[in-house]
């Protein structure tokens, strides 16, 4: 055994698959572009639906991946495909000869500035879900000073063809409900409004937190997408939407508006994908061999995918996907890879 496996991306998907593959006895090399492992998880405070501390989950992932060779601040400089392995030159000068490459490049948060009408980066009191998590972690944010009225705008950069992203980001509804509750906990006298188009609370316990938000915290859910944000003379925000249930336009003055920025394909991941000539689908995420039967395999033999690199996923889905990817890598390295003579034939039959 002891094949080399290169994992690109040190977020939850990369860490979990690294941990699994290492356990199987492979030699795992994990690279991470940023200085820190953990991806977006490292920036999050608590996780829906049960408000588990993100650090706790990340700690578990990091412990699992102990022993894996991790290079942070590292990107891929060049990749060339050898007979059936990959020769990967990293930006830190190291060259890895890898028998399988697992791309776990994750996602980028939608750049909320692009939704110009919401005024992120223009109006003082507009922030994103990530900003709010940072506030929860650090306890400070210049925008948050005992807000009386707080709004959450769902679907910012999701289900929006104008913003170039038709798909649903899957996690924002639950995140918004979670954050709405957390804001109510922090500011019990605040009025909290969630502007949604559909509440996509499909997971286990998700509906419970929705009910809890209504019943215990009195969060107001308004079915209508935020259409326009502007700044009042006193610096508060004027938010307009339609209450589509009532069929009437609506306005509300808010002290804080939180934009639920959705998931976009990772820009860094895209660059690596280009090096590997990995195909992407219309939505910008990497294409897979088969969306149902082989969703961890790239169309290119020897290249595997895990986590949000293949589309928006919740954290448990990402971890499950990472474990599945590890199994797929193992299957490839034991069933297809060893037979050098028939490699091409086997790929044709079994990839």
């Amino acid at each position, binding site marked *: 055994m002891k094949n080399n496996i290169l994992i690109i991306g040190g977020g939850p998907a990369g860490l979990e698959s690294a941990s699994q593959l290492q356990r199987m006895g492979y030699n795992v090399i994990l690279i991470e572009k940023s200085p820190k492992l953990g991806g977006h998880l490292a920036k999050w405070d608590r996780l829906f639906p049960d408000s588990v501390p993100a650090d706790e989950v990340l700690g578990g992932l990091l412990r699992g991946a102990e022993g894996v060779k991790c290079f942070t601040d590292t990107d891929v400089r060049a990749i060339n495909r050898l007979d059936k392995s990959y020769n990967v030159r990293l930006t830190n000068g190291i060259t890895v000869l890898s028998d399988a490459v697992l791309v776990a490049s994750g996602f980028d948060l939608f750049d909320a500035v692009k939704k110009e009408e919401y005024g992120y980066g223009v109006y003082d009191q507009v922030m994103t879900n990530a900003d709010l998590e940072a506030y929860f972690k650090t306890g400070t944010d210049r925008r948050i000073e005992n807000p009386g009225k707080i709004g959450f705008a769902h679907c910012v950069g999701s289900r929006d063809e104008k913003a170039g992203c038709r798909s649903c980001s899957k996690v924002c509804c639950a995140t918004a409900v979670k954050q709405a509750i957390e804001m109510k906990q922090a500011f019990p006298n605040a009025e909290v409004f969630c502007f949604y188009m559909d509440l996509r609370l499909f997971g286990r316990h998700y509906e419970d937190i929705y009910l809890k938000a209504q019943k215990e915290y009195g969060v107001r859910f308004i079915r209508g997408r935020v259409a326009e944000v502007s700044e009042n003379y006193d610096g508060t925000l004027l938010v307009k939407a339609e209450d589509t249930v*009532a*069929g009437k336009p609506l306005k509300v003055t808010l002290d804080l508006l939180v934009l639920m920025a959705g998931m976009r394909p990772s820009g860094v991941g895209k660059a690596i994908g280009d090096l590997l000539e990995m195909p992407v689908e219309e939505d910008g995420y990497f294409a897979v061999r088969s969306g149902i039967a082989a969703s961890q395999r790239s169309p290119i033999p020897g290249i595997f995918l895990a986590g949000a690199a293949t589309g928006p996923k919740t954290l448990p889905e990402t971890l499950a996907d990472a474990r599945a990817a590890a199994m797929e890598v193992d299957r490839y390295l034991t069933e297809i890879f060893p037979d050098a003579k028939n490699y091409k034939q086997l790929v044709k039959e079994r990839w």
Partner: protein
Amino acid sequence: MTPLLYLLAAQAPDPEVIDRIPSGFSPFVLPFTIGVAFMFSWIGVGLIRLLAAIPKSDRIKFAKSLFIPKTALKNIKDLFCDCLFHVKIWQRKPLLGYMHSAIAFGWFMIIILGHIEVALFVPARLNVTRGGLFYPIFYRYFVWMNPGHTTLRGAFFFFLMDFFLLYILSGIALAIFKRFRSIVLGMRHTTKPSLADRVALYSLWMIFPLRLLAESFTADLSGGSFLTVPVNHFWHFLFGDKLWFMPTWWAYSICLGLFFAAMPFSRYMHILTEVLWILLRNAGIEPNHPRKGVAEAEIYACSSCGLCLDACPMNVQKKNLKYSSVYFIRFLRRHNEKKINDIADKCLMCDKCHALCPVGVNAPALRRAQRATVNNAIPFDYSYLSTASGSTLAGETHATLGTVRGGTGASLCEASGGAERSEAVARPRVLPETATGKVLYFAGCMTHLTPRIIKSVEKVFKAAGVDYVFADREGGICCGRPLMLAGRKEAAAKVIEANKKMIEESGCDTLVLSCPICLKVFKEEYQLQGIRIVHYTQFINDLIASGKLAVKNTGEKIVYHDPCELGRGCGIYLEPRAALGQVGTLVKASKEYDESICCGGSLGSLTLDMKDRGKISESSLDSLLANDPQTIVTACPLCLKTFSEAVSNSKGPRKDVKVKDFAEVICG
């Protein structure tokens, strides 16, 4: 009677009984006298206020009722059966009945006999100015028995007095025991006594032992019988010849005084008020206010016995005990508006407390009256009903149903027409084109949520060849009962008026209802002249009995649930059972007929939440499934829906029990 008693006394040649204390007074009688005088004046004033609060017409009705022989006879019967013998309690809980009747009847007899004794032996003392108020009570203190002239007559009374004292004491013993171990007497819950209750209660407990003590201390002077005389001997044996008996008479008097003084503020007020309540009730006067007038008699007639605690289906959860009728009445007495409203709103109106109440206090009616004080004033606009019922006139066949207008999806063209609301008025199809039948079937709102009832009823009607008209096939208006239950009498009247018009114009002679909620209000409030109002269980049972409908007995083990409004509400218990007996084998529920437990779905309660309702459904199911039936049959759409959901939500084998509607089972 008095002259006769004097006559009897005069016949005695030599006094058998000698007035021991010529003044006929001793200071120890004061506590009693004060207490009883206080009570009588309190009651006197209360009675005047109460009668004043009754509308004049009712007052006249009341006065007249006292002289109508039939009512008078019923009054006497009820007074004896309810006030003295507590027949209703006997019927359900014999031991408890014995306890109540021992105290009530025993005490009553002791008072009567005491007066007879005075009348016989010292008739002059009956005069109020000569101690008539207390003398008969403390007779044994004031007299000296002439040992040379003992007669059988005297001994007879001594015996009777001792007998009834013993009788009472046995009741008291049970009462004391009940306070600590109520379950033995068949009560799972007992009332929590208030302060006045406690004073009166402990006084009551003490009165008769003290009387025994006092009378036995003086038994060698004033005579006694099998109880007092031996006890007297015992005292002599214990204390020698010098018995100083004043303290015991004082204590006896004080306890009596305390009891009577506390009485107006305690549950024992019922002892006297019950009499008035029975008279008012039998006169047919109904409360129009939850606290004033007749209601006052009613709430003071409540003995706080607590039988309603066990009757109430909500009390399957201990936290709901506080919503029971007994507490409702207690708070009514105390004028605690907040609590009164809370309790009034919580009740399911299943009427079981009323059915089981020994004094027939109609607490649900009082609750409705209370709800009315809050809810009757809520504004409403039923102007559309006139249009709705107007369309029932023959020839109106182009019925269209209104669309429900919502935010999304619905047509918005009307949105531009300002008359959106009025334009949306639809006319219900009340009578189809071929309205020749004399039978009108009215399904009601709830039945429309359980279409299987409608389907089965129509199937049965068809099989039996019933020529009928389906009054509300396309949906009608509400019967008004839910509004009545919420205390919205005026609103209900409008709904009733509209429905009544529709029914009268239909020309039917029989109105068949499948919803007991409708049935109750149609029967009580609609006053449909010449139209027979029947529940479909009755109607179908008649069809079977007259051979028009053939049914097959499948031998299925069936338990029948008595819906509140059908059983307790309309007294229909037997017809559904008779019919069901023809299609299956009926098994018993542990509580049935008028003790049937509400399914929990009742519209009566305004504030009971889903969880609490679920608990009630569970307990009702427990009762129904006592004898392992295969199928639960009910004859109310609300029960059907509630039980169906409760069964499907429950775990274990219970899930396999089928819940069916009466008509569904009949048509097999």
